[in-house]
């Protein structure tokens, strides 16, 4: 099982219903979004005029840049494959990539709201909801979950359900017969660039070259610098953190260390 979403920009009419349905479903503050629609053009491309849309959301990347940078205390978490019943137990911080369904998730209970994951995402797919700040956190990170909670109830993701164009297609990329896999076969692709190749699983299909050319201009051209530094640091410190996971404050101290390094850099 490997969830992915395809957006068929031939069908998309740019109505923005997906973004508002998501806000309603997940009580996303008005100024933020777990997903977005950017209207692109009309602009000239090498293939003629194009006026299209970039309906974006978390890419639940194969190599997510947001996961390793999380400084929250790791805990041991057991994941279960819904199909086979197989389990895997992993040490995870407050955000992780599910080994069975491929989605990237957040544990808001343990999120300290430091913003490292938000800063690490080249797609801008995460935000920090500061309204949820408490004694232990500066807020809570939030982003698209591919509506796994709805999937568990047999429902479609909220954005897919409301899409009047049938332009959002959700399913299992591992299943070659699935609609999403068929779209990939037909040429659906994620927004990647030379510098940003982290395996996005939200992908786009369009038969008009002009539209795809314009859309691909929305691909991020570089990895956020904070992300690179934090990832490097995380790789150095994480093994140690894992051993002493019961000492709760290290997460915060770690994040302070990281942010001070960051400050030094910007000075």
């Amino acid at each position, binding site marked *: 099982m490997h969830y992915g979403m395809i957006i068929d920009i*031939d*069908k998309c*009419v*740019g*109505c*923005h*219903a997906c*973004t*508002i*349905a998501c*806000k*309603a*479903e*997940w*009580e996303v503050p*008005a*100024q933020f*979004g777990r997903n977005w*629609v950017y209207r692109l*053009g*009309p*602009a*000239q491309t090498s293939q003629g*005029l*194009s*006026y*299209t849309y970039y309906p974006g959301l978390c890419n639940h990347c194969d190599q997510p840049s947001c996961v390793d940078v999380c400084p929250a205390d790791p*805990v*041991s*978490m*057991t994941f279960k494959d819904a199909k086979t019943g197989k389990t895997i137990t992993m040490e995870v911080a407050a955000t992780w990539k599910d080994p069975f369904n491929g989605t990237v*998730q957040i*544990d*808001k*209970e*343990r999120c300290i709201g430091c913003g490292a994951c938000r800063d690490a995402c080249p797609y801008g797919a995460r935000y920090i909801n500061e309204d*949820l700040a*408490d*004694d*232990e*956190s500066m807020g*809570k990170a939030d982003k698209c979950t591919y509506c*796994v*909670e*709805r999937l*568990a*109830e047999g*429902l479609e993701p*909220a954005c897919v*359900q*409301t*899409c*009047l*164009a*049938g332009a959002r297609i959700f399913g299992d990329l591992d299943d070659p017969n699935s609609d999403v896999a068929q779209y990939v076969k037909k040429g659906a692709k994620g927004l990647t660039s030379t510098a940003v190749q982290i395996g996005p699983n939200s992908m786009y299909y369009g038969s008009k070259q002009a*539209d795809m050319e314009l859309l691909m201009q929305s691909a991020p051209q570089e990895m956020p610098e904070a992300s690179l530094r934090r990832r490097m640091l995380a790789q150095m410190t994480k093994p140690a953190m894992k051993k002493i996971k019961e000492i*709760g404050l290290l997460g915060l101290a770690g994040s302070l260390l990281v942010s001070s390094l960051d400050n030094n850099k910007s000075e």
Partner: protein
Amino acid sequence: MAIHLSRRSFLKTASIAAASVPLSKVVAKAESDVVKAPLVPPGSFKDTQTVVGGVCEMCFWRCQLVGKVRDGRLVKIEGNPKSIDNGVSICARGNAGVKMLYDPDRLKYPMKNVGKRGEPKWQRITWEEALDTCAEKLKGIVEEHGPEALAIFPHGASASYPFHFFEHTVGTPNVSEASFFQCRGIRDMAYVATIEKPPGENVDMPNTKVLFLIGGHFGENVHVSHLKRYLKGLENGAKLIVVDPRFSASASKADVWVPIRPGTDTAMLLAIMNYLIENELYDADFVDEYGEGFEEFAEGIKEWTLAKAAIECDIPVAQIKQVAEMLAENAPNVAIHPGRHVSWYGNDFQRQRALACLTGLLGAFGVKGGFVPPKGPKGLKKVSWPHGEHEADRLTEYSDNPYTFSPPGTPTDLIRDAAITGKPYPIKGCVVWGQNPIQTIPNQEKTIQMLQQMDFVMCTDIQPTDITMFADILLPECSYLERYDYIKTGTQWNFADEHQQYIAPRMPLVEPGFERKDGIWITNEIAKRMGYGEHIPVKDQVEMVNYRLSGVGLSLDKIREEGGIHLQPGVDPYGVDEDLTIHFYNEDLEDEDYPPIPTYIPVDRAPAGYMRLLYGRSPLHTFNRTQNNAWLMAANDSNPVWVNDKVAEALGLQDGDTVKLINQDGVESRTTTTVKVTPGIRKDAVYMYHGFGSRNPELTIGHNKGVDDTSLITRLAVDPETGCHGMRNNFVKLVKVS
């Protein structure tokens, strides 16, 4: 105990257990019985009740809804799974209905203006006082000047009942519905003059071979089942022709984009028809059987060669020819879309007549992919106020132009001019119900003059708008989520599917908040106080809907049990109506000295240094009605002005520059907007979304966001046959502010 209990300490014991279960299962309740606010929102599907029977009115397409309600609070709106129209899909605005419902700026109580009109100071009053005042003032005006002294500006489903009271029973003909006089009235009357019926948007798009749009910008203009039809057509391989000065959302999906000079569409249509006739590419048998006055028509449009139209329309001859041939090759399975908002240039009746004639020439009535009205349910009873004895004194009797083809009501300008001048008779009372004439009717200064000379102005709405600033008494109405009124009927959206019909009466999804009341109650209470109590047709909203449904053996309870929508077997809609007559030449028009065949009437071109102001729809907004919606405004809170890239370069404007707009009469926009530089618009026009820049500070989100396009539409253009407004004959220049 404070909710702000440290989550970390609370979770100390829970976190280890929680770590191994899905997040959604994390316990949200401590053993100490302290309930903490959930960090993970529960979603709309957990612990909610699904309430059926919603019918949307974020716009007027009226999708069928269900509400997800938790503890009496509406948390989410979805399409009703039983719907054969919109299905489970709803648009951005439909989804944002929740934010409209709970908007803290909404009207909550009856209010009295103790300040000035336009600069109101509100004082909360009781319903008793509000109703007594409205009835006393309105009755006083009727007694002093006659019922004609009342001007009514209604809009929306809930406005029908009150305006019929004032029109039928009290007896004023001075009703101006925005949906007619500033929108689709021209279309409806032009089709009545051509095929004897208003057309709706009834083209069989899913099954067509060619879809022909003039100005239709689907995707920016969003009506769910209409878009489903459009997209199904494209998916099925239909060719799309889009005539628009702008590279619109539809143009971007088109096979042929015709970047026509604004105002000249009729010239192009006449040239296409002339070409079809001269080259015998039209359906002669069909025209023979159903046409009237074809010879006069053919003779009359002869001057319209492709070359002549190409110059007038500023498009290549080859492109007009390509369009004509594409239509002819695929006839009769072609969809000539009648449009919806068509009050553009003051010459629009002619264009709409031409569209109906073109449909006839191509034999595209009643056939797959052509003009095919759905066959919806019949037999719903009508509820109406009885007509009084009074013989209405109509303003059209006094006007130079009788506007013989006016849609029902009275042309807006006749009402406004009479009010301002007092001639031929005074208009001293104004009832506004759900309409916002300030941002609907061109020339705001005149509208304000009209309002200022009134003895009494009453407004009913769900929220403050620009017009409510001018009310003496302001009444808070239940929104579409809190009331019964409209019964939506129709068929399955795609005629290729099993034929079905539906009946979906609007039912409230939640109880009304604060002191909001429904329109039936408000109207009845005013009617009683004005002395019309014995004429009241129904006692309340439930009785009204049940009475109407009784005509088909249904009731609200029964339909609620059926999931909010009643379905029944449908009827094949194809086939040409035996009575169909296509009046290529219309004698009635001739008799009234209007052009009897479709005729091109040129409009002024932009003066040097100015560009024509065009406006259209944002997919996130319905005119100005959604301007305070937190979700919709977060996604789209301004209306950047589209400027051609070459023009921008010449003017020294860059994408994102802030500008104000000044029109040909020197009227300046009160606010500013940004420039959107694009090759996707002609050089002689600019474009912006309609409905922004509200002047009412009570709209804490929408106030002064973007530019109010209507404020710049000061020069009037009135369609001579219908009296409807044309609103695209104003020209602007852009002045860089920063």
